[in-house]
């Protein structure tokens, strides 16, 4: 691994990695059963440098911002490297957002260059939001030869001859603007510095190391903080390889493990749970004679109580491990809360799950389970260099989790007010509730903030979806996370509810319910509300007439949640 303490920027470290590991394979790209590409670090450099030169020739320079909206593929990483090489900052956006949401964030980020895929551009180019953003150059990958590009240029042809000049950056400069939320409401563009990434990489790889020959299967979107770190920066600075799948169909994902001898993979809890169900169904279908697997699991469980013993587990549970390729060292899970029984299930099979807790605002991860010992009911211990504190703990030790360290973001882009609310005296207030156990494991137990996280790892802020209900024929309305109104010591099954104040004498009619349903359907499935709460009083408001959400939530909390939430 490179000694990252010596580096000032992500670009400088990657630049050296491409030379140091020139002959190693860095990327394998697969579409279903077809391997499309296999690149060494030298090949990667040869693809990226002409792109960096073309960016520089187009006037892209230090501090300029370029956005990437792409599914996981080699061109994502090649483009990102070219941007860093040219001294730019990256704005990685979620390809699953709607075109309007993407334009809003492009506008907010100030990106002047957009690098995207043809199917995404097909929708973006005709979206009304295009006019408002300041994007001057659009590069589109994989466009069919006869496609009308609506002012965009082909990524494959955007190349210049000659060597680009590397533009150095300092540790305190912004490397990426990563949106943790905020489409439609208040965009939260986390300004991540080069230092944030360099420090986080050192901390994470001290627990879960990469080296040449390691293969990481990239499934989580690369715009997500976890995949950016463990599916790009981490493996690249260690000479490891990243495997990209162009489809996420379970059957092809399953096939990839043995075919490419995967070492690490990151998953969201939903996918992990799905894997668990699949394995459990296979165990249950075993004929009586083969059921000794359950005894073997029990033996493995006993032998790995204090620490994982990969060699022993691979021997004892050969078939299970072979289904995962036989080289899997850990499944990294993140983005949302994972149920302890799922974690325990995999640990007992000898497949450790690196369960952690993180926020985009804090770098990738705050805590990770170091497996010494494994505690399925916790999110592990703070990473090296990370200070974690429980603020104002109650008698049971539970309080708000606060974080300080070199991986905490510089602040929210263009929002000093929100930054000041979030980073107080150098401590990042996470809005999550938790407590520490005596050996230093952190256990999360709920949320203080008005938001939900789905099992697929999506952060949903109520403010962001309210625009869909604008103009609803009611006196006033407000969307809440149900747990924010009725706090629950739980991190799963979170729901959004719509608080309604009807006009005097207005009934909650079938017609109104239908109208709410129609509008709700316009939201992406995971952003939808699950019920309505009716209120008969005026909503409390500030002098500037903004709803005082915390006061309103307090009022609502006096209602009984079991009867107050009307299903749609």
């Amino acid at each position, binding site marked *: 691994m490179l000694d990252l303490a010596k580096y000032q920027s992500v670009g400088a470290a990657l630049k050296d990695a491409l030379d140091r590991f020139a002959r190693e394979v860095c990327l394998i790209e697969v579409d*279903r059963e077809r391997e499309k590409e296999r690149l060494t670090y030298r090949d990667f450099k040869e693809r990226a440098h002409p792109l960096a030169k073309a960016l520089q020739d187009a006037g892209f320079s230090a501090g300029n911002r370029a956005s990437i909206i792409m*599914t996981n593929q080699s061109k994502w990483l090649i483009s990102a490297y070219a941007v860093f090489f040219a001294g730019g900052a990256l704005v990685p956006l979620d*390809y*699953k957002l*709607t075109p309007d949401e993407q334009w809003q964030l492009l506008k907010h980020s100030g990106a002047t260059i957009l690098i995207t*895929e043809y*199917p*995404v551009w097909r*929708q973006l180019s005709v979206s009304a939001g295009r006019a408002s953003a300041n994007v001057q150059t659009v590069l589109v990958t994989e466009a069919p030869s006869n496609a009308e590009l609506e002012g965009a240029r082909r990524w494959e042809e955007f190349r210049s001859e000659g060597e680009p000049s590397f533009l150095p950056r300092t540790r305190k400069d912004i490397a990426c603007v990563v949106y943790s939320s905020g489409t439609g409401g208040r965009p939260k563009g986390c300004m991540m510095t080069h230092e944030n990434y360099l420090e986080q990489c050192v901390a994470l790889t001290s627990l879960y190391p990469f080296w040449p020959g390691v293969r990481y299967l990239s499934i989580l979107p690369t715009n997500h903080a976890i995949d950016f770190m463990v599916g790009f920066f981490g493996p690249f600075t260690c000479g490891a390889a990243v495997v990209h799948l*162009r*489809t*996420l*169909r*379970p*059957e092809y994902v399953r096939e990839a493990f043995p075919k490419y001898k995967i070492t690490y993979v990151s998953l969201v809890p*939903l*996918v992990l749970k*799905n894997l668990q169900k699949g394995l459990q169904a296979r165990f249950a279908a075993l004929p009586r004679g083969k059921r000794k697997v359950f005894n073997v699991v029990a033996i493995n469980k006993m032998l790995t109580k204090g620490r994982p013993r990969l060699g022993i587990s691979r021997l004892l549970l050969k078939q299970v491990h072979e289904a995962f390729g036989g080289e899997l060292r850990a499944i990294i899970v993140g983005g949302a809360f994972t149920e302890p029984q799922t974690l325990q299930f995999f640990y007992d099979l000898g497949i450790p799950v690196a369960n952690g807790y993180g926020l985009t605002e804090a770098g990738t991860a705050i805590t990770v389970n170091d497996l010494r010992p494994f505690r399925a009911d916790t999110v592990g211990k703070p990473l090296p260099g990370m200070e974690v504190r429980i603020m104002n703990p109650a008698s049971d030790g539970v309080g708000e989790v606060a974080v300080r360290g070199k991986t905490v973001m510089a602040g929210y882009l263009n929002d000093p007010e929100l930054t000041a609310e979030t980073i107080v005296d150098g401590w990042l207030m996470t809005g999550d509730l938790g407590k520490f156990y005596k050996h230093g494991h952190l256990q999360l137990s709920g949320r203080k903030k008005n938001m939900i996280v789905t*099992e*697929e790892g999506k952060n949903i802020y109520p403010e962001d979806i309210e625009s869909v209900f604008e103009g609803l024929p009611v006196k006033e309305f407000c969307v809440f996370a149900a747990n924010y109104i009725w706090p629950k010591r739980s991190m799963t099954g979170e729901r959004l509810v719509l608080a309604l104040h009807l006009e005097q004498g207005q009934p909650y009619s079938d017609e109104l319910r239908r109208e709410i349903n129609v509008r709700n*359907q316009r939201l*992406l*499935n995971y952003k*939808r509300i699950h019920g309505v709460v009716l209120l008969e009083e005026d909503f409390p408001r500030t002098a500037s007439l903004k709803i005082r959400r915390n006061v309103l939530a307090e009022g609502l909390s006096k209602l009984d949640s079991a009867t107050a939430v009307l299903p749609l």
Partner: protein
Amino acid sequence: MRTLEQTTREVLDLATKHFQLPEGSLAPEDDFFKRLGIDSLQTLEMLSRLENHFGIELPDYEVQGVSDFKTLAERIQSRL
């Protein structure tokens, strides 16, 4: 060659069988996330079944943002 109407009907029939619903209980405009209560993974599984049935390859990005059977059938039709 199937008409869009036929394709739509076959999509609905297949989803009805796949999720073991009473016959005729799905409509073209139905949102499959809401109507079937499925997540994105189960949707991908349903897509694989549809691909096998129609003998086509439907890349994941083609169905990005699609949540009703009618649009899904249109995307399939364009590849038949």
